[in-house]
Every structure is written in C-alpha cells, then in structure tokens.
C-alpha cells in the first residue's frame, strides 16, 4: 500500500508529461471534414465504395463499411456508437432525432409519410403490435423510449 502511495506522484507526473508530449504532436493528426465535399443523392442508399476504397483519414475506419446496405441500416446503432463523427459528415443530429429523442411529437412515419422508402419504425397499427413486440424484445423499446420519451409509455403502463 505504501509503495502504491509513493508511486502515485510519479504516475501523475508521467501522465502529465505524456499529455504534454501528446499535445505537441496533435498537429500531425488529421481530422474528418465538417461535411461531405460532394452533394449526395437524396433517397439513394449511399454506397461509399462508388468513390472510396480507402480508410477515412480521421478515423482509420474503412469508409466502405459505412455503405448503407440493409445490414447497415438495420444495425446502424453499432456504427453510431463506434464513431458518430463519421455519421456527422453527412447527417445532422436532427436526422437521428427524428426517431431517437427525449420527447417525440408524432410517429416518424407520419412526419415522413411522403418518404416511405425510409421505412420508419412503427408503421401501421403499432398500437396492437407493440403488445407482442414489447414482450419479444423489450431492449429494442428501451433504446428509444428508455432513458427518455417515457411519457407515452407510462400513459398506460404503470
């Protein structure tokens, strides 16, 4: 225990030196651009491999991994959690908040009724379906309704 206490200042000093050294080298680290340099077609599942076959400079992730295939669209939570900075090059935060938000006003499929190709969640009579889907996979409800957006849930579920 005494050894650990003696080591603490040294460890702190080492961390500080490392941090300073790191800051000095920061200028050599590339950043992602703020936005995609070319306009992308609306309504087309983005295929990054049309132009890219390399890694994103700022993240070293293969850009093609972010092509919007059916698997990507269904599992986009993994990619967003992995690095939402790459998402933010093309999407505003409000694009995510159409579905994932603390307080939602209407079903996304109503707001975007003119864009059925976006296949928004809870289309049709989800009032009936949620009684089955909620039992089947409650974690899938929790991702949007759990840490916020409880208001509509607890209107019935108490």
């Amino acid at each position, binding site marked *: 225990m005494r050894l650990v206490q003696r080591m603490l200042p040294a460890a702190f000093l080492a961390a500080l030196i490392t941090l300073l050294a790191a800051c000095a080298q920061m200028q050599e680290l590339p950043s992602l651009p703020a936005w995609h340099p070319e306009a992308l077609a609306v309504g087309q599942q983005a295929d990054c491999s049309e132009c890219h076959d390399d890694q994103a400079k700022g993240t070293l992730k293969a850009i093609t991994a972010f092509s919007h295939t059916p698997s990507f669209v269904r599992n986009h939570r993994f990619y967003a959690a992995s690095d939402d900075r790459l998402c933010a090059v093309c999407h505003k935060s409000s694009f995510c908040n159409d579905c994932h938000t603390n307080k939602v006003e209407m079903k996304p499929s109503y707001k975007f009724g*003119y864009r059925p190709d976006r296949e928004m969640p809870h289309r049709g009579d989800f009032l009936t379906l949620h009684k089955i889907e909620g039992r089947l996979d409650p974690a899938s409800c929790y991702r949007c309704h759990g840490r916020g957006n409880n208001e509509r849930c607890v209107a019935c579920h108490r």
Partner: protein
Amino acid sequence: MKQTLCRLLSAASLLILPVAALAAETAVDATTIFRFDQRDITGASKENLMPATQFLGLDVDKLADGNLSLHLYGWGRADLADKSYNKNTVDGSFTYGYLQYRFKEANADVCLGRLFVHEGIANEQVDGISARTDLPLGFSLSGFGGGTVHTKHLYGETSDGKGDSIIGGRAGYRYKGLLDLGVSAVYEDNAPKLTSTLADGVTPRYTNVTHRLIGGDIRLSPFHMVELMGHTSYNTETRGVAEHSYLLTVKPVRGLVVSGEFNEYRDRSYLASWAMFSGTFNPGDKSRSVGGIASYDLTKTIELAADYKHYTRELGNADRYGINARAGFLNNSVRTGFGYHYLRAGSGFAIATTPSASYHELHAFALHDSKTYFAALDGVDYIFKDKIYNEKSAWEGTASLGYHITPALALSGDVSYGRNPQFTEEIKGLARLTYNMTFDSKGGKK
C-alpha cells in the same frame, strides 16, 4: 444546484452568438404539419382533433474564426380543436441547442449546450458540455458532463428514471485500421431506483441512488472484408452484466453483405431505471437474440435481402424471418420496395387470451419525386395467425401527394385509411409545408 448551473451555462453560451455571427453559413429546416383526426370511441364523447406542429432546425456554420458552429432543433404544437394529447393544448420540446467548436487537428471538438452523446456505452441527452480528441500513438479521449434532460409531467410517476447530473467518458486505443478498443463509464447522481410501491400498492416508490455503468467496446477488422464490432456494459449498482451486443459483418464479394448479431440483456441491470420497469417486466428476466441478414445488390439500384432472428426469453422463444426487395428507376426518381416477414411466437408473447402471437407482415411502397411534384403510396398489412380482439388483420394504406413550390419549399398532404383491432375504421389526414434552405452552401448538404 449542479443542474441549474449547467442549464445557466448552456443558455449563456447562446448569448455570444450575435457577436460571432459574421461570415456565417446558415441552414434552416422547417416543417409545419396540420393533422386532422376524428375519434369516436364507444362510451366517450366524439372528438375532433386538429393539432398544428412546427418543427424547426437551424444550423449556423463558420462563426467567429470559422471553426465555431451553432445547432438548434425543436418543435412546438398547438391544438386548434380538441386536445390531442394529455392535459395541455400546447406543448413543445427543445430537442437540442449547442455551440460546437471543431479544432483543425485530431478530430477534436468541444460542444456546449443541450446535446446528445453517443460514444461507447453512453447514449444520453445532457445540458452541459462534451469534448473529445484523438491522441498520438492511436489513443483517444472523450468526456461529457452536465444536467440530465428530464421528460416533463410524466403522468402518474414521481420520476422519469433520470437523476440530477451525469458524467461519463471513454478512453480508446486504435491500432491502424485493424482494431479499436474502448473503455467507458457513465456515472449519474441521484438516479431513481424502484424499490417497492406506496401503500396503495400501485404507485411506485423510488429511492435515489447513483447509477453507474462501465463497459468496453471493440471493433476488429483483421481483413478488409471482415468486421466485428460491439460492446458489453456492466451495472455496478446491481453488480451484474447489463448488455452484450455484437455484430459480425462479412463482405465476401462486391454487392454481397452477410452479417450476424448476438444480443443479450439482463433486465435488472439494463432496464433498472426505466419507469415502465415498475409494472411490466420481471427483474429476473433476461432476453437474448441471435440473427443474421444477407443482402445482395443485383444492380446499382436493385437490392435483395433476407433475414432471420431467434429470440429467447423466460416467456418462451420465437423466430422471425423474411425477405425485402427494393428498386429504383428513372435515375432513382421512382423508387419501390416490398417485404414479407413471418413471426412465429407462442402464447407467452400473445395478447390477452389469444393462443399465439404469430403473424405475417406484408408491406409495399412506391414513390415518385420530380422537380415539380412528388407522390407516394405505402401499404402495410399484419395478418394474425389467431384473431386479436376478433380481428384477423390490421392494415393501413397511405397516399401522399406534394408540390415543390420552389426547390426549397414544398406543400404536401397525406391521407391514410385502415382497419385494425383497435379501431373498426381509422381515417387520418395531414397537410405539410416543408422548407429546407441552405444559404451559401459549399459541399454536400446534410
């Protein structure tokens, strides 16, 4: 106190804007929606609903030295006839509003205001600050902190499941493009924890505790065509694993993508602070799902996909499988798609006394978007294996028609009709005005 301070700081950060708003690039997104609905429920008076909702987003880039930007988004609603929801005739939400400063190097940025944080195991909305940066030798650091954003007026509950203040962060290490590893933690002060019910036996009783999650995440891509990613979180309050979520993706040839996922959740540790947890779920339960999806691009605009998922819970197990197809024509201005899925689920997942929860799902859509008008048709039908509330199916069809008044301004309307177990007939109407404008845009529009 901490919460108030965070909110004051967030609000104060917006005051510097007029000074900095020089040479800025601005984008406005506004959608006004009027909905028309008539409710006639047995035993209740007939209601005419006409809520008017305004969604408004504003993004101002290149403020000050060019690296500062402002982002705002929210909505407000007024009921022009009967009340559409809860006790208020007006309602609204300030979804986010923050200043962001992006440094030119190392992917570093600092955000201040109301913002969403997604990183590692954190998925939070806070009134506060977040910062992140890459470091030499492949390391990275990020952190956030502030007041939690509460859902107001949670009817019948004394808590919305959130505490007063929250802090978290992630430390990461990246080796070339092959490996990303991260450890992250979230600490929430005064978070409610459901312990029992009050004397009435119904109203939940909460005690305030700290809510702590720690976790790790990985992304491994040993070959260009293979990628594994996912995370595990551990709840130190309940001393149990909360979540395992992993996805393996393989792209053996161009156009073919095959992925498999594994998810496991322990309800006590994962859902503990959810208000719905009070009466709906068994804390001892856990859920697991294993599945996969394969998709193939026949051409650049024709895509086929098939998927399967197996669910396991204490209630029983279930399977879902199906196919989807999408196509685009005329330079993608015409798009269409259809899908079929079947859920096989036993009585444990069924509604009321229905012997089975199995159902077929069919959906199809088609849309056309030209420079002048746009139109869409969408249909979805759920056919139940066993009748629910004496109805064999639930279906809805929606038709939408719109006109581009200018490239940025469009007027459109939707009409939908359906029959389902909840309503014998359901007719809904909607009128929509959208305005999406970017001034002095360079590069792609977001």
